């Protein structure tokens, strides 16, 4: 179903999506929040700029954005898939607990903050470009993969990555010599096993956005995990 969002506020837009069980195609989006929040089993295609908290609590639906998205994409998402053919703002995948997010371009600050996993619920986020500061802040589970495609001389991620991390993994397509990590995480080159762990998601990324997976994988990768010998015990206060 085609929905013209240009003169709908976020309440009206979301109501018109919920009114139908069909897949939806939204055109003329301009900043409406919470699009497809909590939705299961459908496909939503978006033209324009969706507002903050796109796909919050998403529960199985697939959202595709043909442009940039704003802040808090996939906030607390539970299942499903969000594909962004552009950049995303801050806090993408905030507290995400399962499902997949693929971002063709760059992510802002705090990507994957407080991502978590439980048994077979393992969230995955692939960022094709570079990510801002505080990537994987307080990460407790799941996989964050940053590819750094087209970054030239820019560092793949910015300051204070993995601060407060106590679970999950961060994969970075870089030797990371120009990145300063906290002492409470372990930083090492990937093994074949690590690469096998992410191959499926990198090939899906390449498939979605038209890259050659062999070329993308043919690079140095670094993996970051919590350092169980020196875990975060007190972040900001002694307690």
């Amino acid at each position: 179903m085609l929905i013209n969002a240009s003169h709908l506020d976020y309440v009206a837009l979301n109501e018109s999506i919920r009114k139908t069980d069909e897949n939806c195609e939204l055109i003329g989006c301009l900043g409406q929040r919470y699009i497809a929040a909590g939705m299961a089993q459908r496909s939503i295609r978006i033209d324009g700029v969706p507002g903050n908290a796109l796909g919050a609590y998403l529960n199985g639906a697939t959202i595709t954005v043909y442009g940039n998205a704003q802040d808090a994409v996939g906030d607390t998402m539970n299942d499903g898939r969000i594909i962004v053919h552009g950049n995303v703002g801050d806090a993408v995948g905030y507290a995400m607990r399962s499902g997949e997010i693929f971002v063709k371009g760059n992510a802002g600050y705090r990507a994957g903050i407080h991502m978590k996993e439980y048994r077979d619920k393992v969230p995955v986020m692939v960022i094709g470009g570079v990510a801002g500061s505080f990537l994987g802040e307080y990460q407790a589970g799941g996989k964050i993969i940053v590819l750094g495609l087209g970054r030239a001389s820019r560092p793949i991620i910015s300051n204070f990555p993995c601060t407060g991390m106590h679970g999950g993994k961060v994969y970075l397509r870089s030797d990371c010599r120009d990145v300063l990590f906290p002492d409470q995480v372990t930083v090492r080159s990937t093994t074949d096993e690590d690469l096998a762990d992410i191959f499926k998601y990198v090939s899906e990324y390449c498939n979605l956005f038209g890259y050659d997976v062999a070329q993308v994988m043919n690079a140095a990768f670094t993996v970051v995990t919590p350092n169980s010998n020196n875990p975060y015990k007190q972040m900001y206060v002694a307690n």
Partner: protein
Amino acid sequence: MRLLAVVKRTKYTQKGKGAFEGSSSKTPLPLTAILYTQKRFVNPPFAIVSRVFCTQVYMALYSGLSLDKLMPVDIILFNEQWRSYGESYAFPPVDAIFVYCERTGDVVRLEGQVRIPSGCAVAAVISRAGKVMSGEKIITAMKPMHDRSNGLGGGYAGYGIYPEYRDFYAFHLFFNDNTARKQCEQLLKEGYEVVQAELIPTRQVAAITDAPLIWRYIVQPLRSCLERVQLDEKEYVTRTVMKINTEHDGANVFSSGKNMGAFKAVGFPEDVGAFYRLDEYAGYCWTAHGRYPTNTPGWWGGAHPFTLLDYSIVHNGEISSYDANRRFIEMYGYKCTLQTDTEVMTYIMDYLLRIQSLTLEEAAAVIAAPFWSTIDMMNDQEREKLTYLRAVFASLLVTGPFSIVLGFSGGLMALNDRLKLRSMVVGEKDDKVFIASEEAAIRAMEPDAENIFAPAGGEPVIVRLEEGSY
């Protein structure tokens, strides 16, 4: 939106009527209530709820009257503790608060009990070539960000809007009444040549109510006065602004620059723009703000932008270091009178840029100083400079979330706090640069905006007019 009546039950109500009857002026008020009157513009804009008011409200509450039978008191704001103006009252918890909105007839719960999806909104547009735009463009930007504010403040700053008076200061003032206006005019006449004095033209807008008297004065400091007090012109004007804002009850200067002006009110920014007829002004740079006040009152003087001379600031965020910053800056003659944290940032920028002659980049490095761990990674020259700035102006480090746009004659600067706890996006198209809290706002102004990017925390984005264009 005019908020008229209040409500709530406190635990006191369960103790019986006597709990209220006994209250004397020495008894702490049993409600976290600040009376904020929108009927009259007063400075400060609120008073602690008088005992009379309390009695009315409590009696009504106690006897369980329905909302429509409540006395139509002005809005009462609640907090666990309110310390902003010298006295501290501790209040028992409030079980529920409702506010009646006269305009819509809705009875709504207050934020905290219901989630209001808000956060302030900022936006700006500047033409590097100095081409003027009507204020309509910037109003357009605020529409998709409507839900970021809650109707308790909106405002704009326009640059290049008074070209025929470009060498004069344009004072915009709010007055409670004509008595306050006459007193203030007397003061102005003693020190300034007043070229023009007029009501700022406004348009009737249903959503904008309880407007104070809003006047504009085009003035020039009298040469003889400047010589007598031996101050440069800008310092002289600054002192006049501080004097009026601190000593003249019921008068408030909210704009005092050359060839620029601020326009602000209680209301949503789109309504505020229509109210001030911004479509009839043309400027090369506009900034805008939609307010969602968190812990300070939503009154006319508290709306953004906050200005001094040509500097104006619109701000999304909350300054954790407000009191530390305020104590420092008040040592240099500035006085924070407007009950909103952003005000201090305007004075800080005036102090750093005008008094201390820092560059914009240096001023940004003071208020959004990099962490020491980041400074340690810099080359020797940068490290030395940043260390110097952090050490000398330690009290002007602004902590807590902010995204601001600083407007000045000939340009603007956008800046995020160093942790980047608020959003800000920049884009451009031809001669124009756009800045906003959301990309949607930029697209509303210019659907084909290019080079959209989000500056990092503490990374100033400085845009200046091309030489000769202004």
